[in-house]
């Protein structure tokens, strides 16, 4: 550790990162004979023992189907599954567990809203507003919906710092605007968007707002009521939980009026060949046997995060990011892509004319895992006129030493191309 980050260390002293790291078995390994430095948390974060054990316990001790049996195992599985829903309800501060729908991930949540709410509500000529910094998952479902309904897609541009141009947003809003889809924190740039203001402006025109919170949930306190979000989506695997599980939050009144997304078991109350009655919320949107272990694992991941405290996590990550940004700014030939005033722990960058893929391959040889590419946000790359960036994204188990290792690694990258 260098002397230069003493100030940040002061913040960090109240945060026992070494103890936290003990909970993450995957971090204690070497890659190409170097200790693993995992800086690809925005793509997917690692899992603490508590989550891994909870999933194992479910399969070893009480695996069975939920909401089906009267036997003890099924009762236990159902209890744990619904307990996870309650934890998530509290985590996002929803009013009711009926507003928490288990899905495969944020992507499925957005598709659910587009196909169920959007197809039901939109008329030809209606407008959907998204932004230039959206992840493909918050672009393509709306494009598909536009093709199906004749609605029109409008895009809020970004400036060169990677911030939304809200003045254009205000001009785009009108009586025809029905849906606004906006990313809470940009996975490609790190920008934290003013979603509360965006929602308020949309509501003035009676448009509903879907917030893609996949990148925000692991780093920020989420309060869907304070935001007045109509829909909020998140992915379990970015929140230290399992893959294949995610959440759609929706205001109860909206969800109540939406047609089911998929048909099958669980989502019905009564089936006959003349008429089928659908189940109540949240089950109406959970056709088939759900990802039970995933939901339980996500519940435990949320317990884990809340035990550390989102405020503590946020403060620590902020100090990590400040330290990384300072080093990045001083590093020769490095250009940071995404310099928003309000930014999360994501450092997207270019290094001279060295392609991001070459950076990624060489860093990997030193045990450093970063993401390289377009980050499923090709329009962002187009805005900055780059084919790809390298991206280091930090979680609360990352250390100041690891940031030093990253920049030492970048020096090695430069050596190769000298």
């Amino acid at each position, binding site marked *: 550790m260098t002397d230069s980050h003493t100030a940040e260390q002061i913040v960090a002293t109240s945060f026992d990162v070494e103890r936290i790291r003990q909970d993450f078995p995957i971090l204690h390994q070497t890659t*190409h004979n170097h200790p693993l430095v995992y800086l690809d948390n925005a793509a997917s974060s690692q899992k603490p023992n508590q989550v891994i054990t909870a999933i194992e316990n479910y399969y070893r001790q009480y695996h069975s189907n939920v909401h089906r049996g009267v036997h003890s195992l099924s009762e236990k599985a159902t209890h744990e599954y619904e307990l996870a829903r309650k934890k998530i309800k509290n985590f996002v501060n929803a009013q009711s567990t009926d507003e928490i729908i288990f899905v495969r991930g944020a992507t499925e949540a957005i598709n659910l809203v587009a196909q169920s709410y959007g197809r039901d509500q939109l008329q030809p000529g209606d407008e959907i507003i998204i932004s230039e910094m959206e992840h493909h998952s918050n672009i393509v479902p709306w494009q598909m919906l536009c093709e199906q309904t004749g609605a029109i897609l409008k895009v809020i541009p970004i400036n060169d710092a990677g911030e939304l141009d809200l003045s254009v947003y205000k001009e785009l809003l009108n009586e025809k605007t029905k849906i606004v889809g906006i990313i809470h924190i940009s996975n490609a740039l790190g920008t934290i968007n003013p979603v509360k203001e965006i929602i308020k402006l949309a509501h003035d025109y009676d448009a509903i707002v879907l917030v893609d919170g996949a990148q925000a949930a692991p780093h920020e306190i989420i309060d869907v009521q304070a935001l007045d979000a109509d829909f909020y989506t998140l992915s379990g695997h970015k929140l230290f939980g399992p893959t294949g599980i995610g959440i759609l939050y929706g205001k109860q009144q909206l969800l109540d009026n939406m047609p089911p997304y998929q048909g099958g078991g669980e989502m019905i109350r009564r089936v006959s060949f003349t008429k089928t009655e659908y189940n109540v919320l949240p089950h109406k949107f959970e056709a088939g046997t759900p990802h039970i272990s995933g939901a339980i694992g996500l519940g435990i991941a949320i317990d884990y995060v809340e035990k550390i405290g989102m405020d503590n996590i946020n403060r620590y990550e902020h100090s990590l990011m400040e330290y990384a940004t300072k080093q990045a700014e001083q590093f020769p030939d490095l250009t940071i892509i995404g310099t928003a005033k309000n930014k999360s722990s994501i450092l997207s960058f270019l290094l001279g004319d*060295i*392609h*991001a*893929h*070459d950076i990624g*391959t*060489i860093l990997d*040889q030193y045990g450093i895992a970063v993401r*390289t*590419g*377009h980050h499923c946000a*090709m329009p962002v*790359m187009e805005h900055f006129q780059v*084919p*790809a960036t390298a991206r280091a994204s930090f979680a609360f188990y990352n250390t100041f030493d690891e940031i030093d290792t990253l920049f030492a690694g970048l020096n*090695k990258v430069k*050596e*190769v*191309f000298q």
Partner: protein
Amino acid sequence: MKDHIRELYQEVIIDHNRSPRNFHKMSDATCHAEGFNPLCGDQLDIYLTIDNETITDISFTGNGCAISTASASLMTEHLKGKTLSEAKAFFQSIHETLTNENEHATEKLGKMIVLAGVKEFPSRVKCATLAWHTLNAALKHDETTVSTE
């Protein structure tokens, strides 16, 4: 520097990345194709002039990593003046080398042997083969964009 890295980023590759050969658009090309690697956004265009079953001129433009740029550059250098059947045979050798289908294929690579280091980096094989797949498409007069996915 680690040997492993040097094996991938050999001097020849660094050199061809820094100063790619035949790097220009060809307005009177007889065939052309565009290649795209959606994983990393690498994109390139290959232009060929073919006269009497022989590649009389070949060039490329585009934007990619060191491996894909060097691979395209080396390819143009090597194929200029070759017959179409020689080019196809060479494509086969490169393909078999990089996909480990034929251990003797490397013997036919000549200077292009520098690309063989990519084998050790499975996620980068597509970077090296992009130019070759695009060439293949151009020779088939296929105007659609080829993708490595």
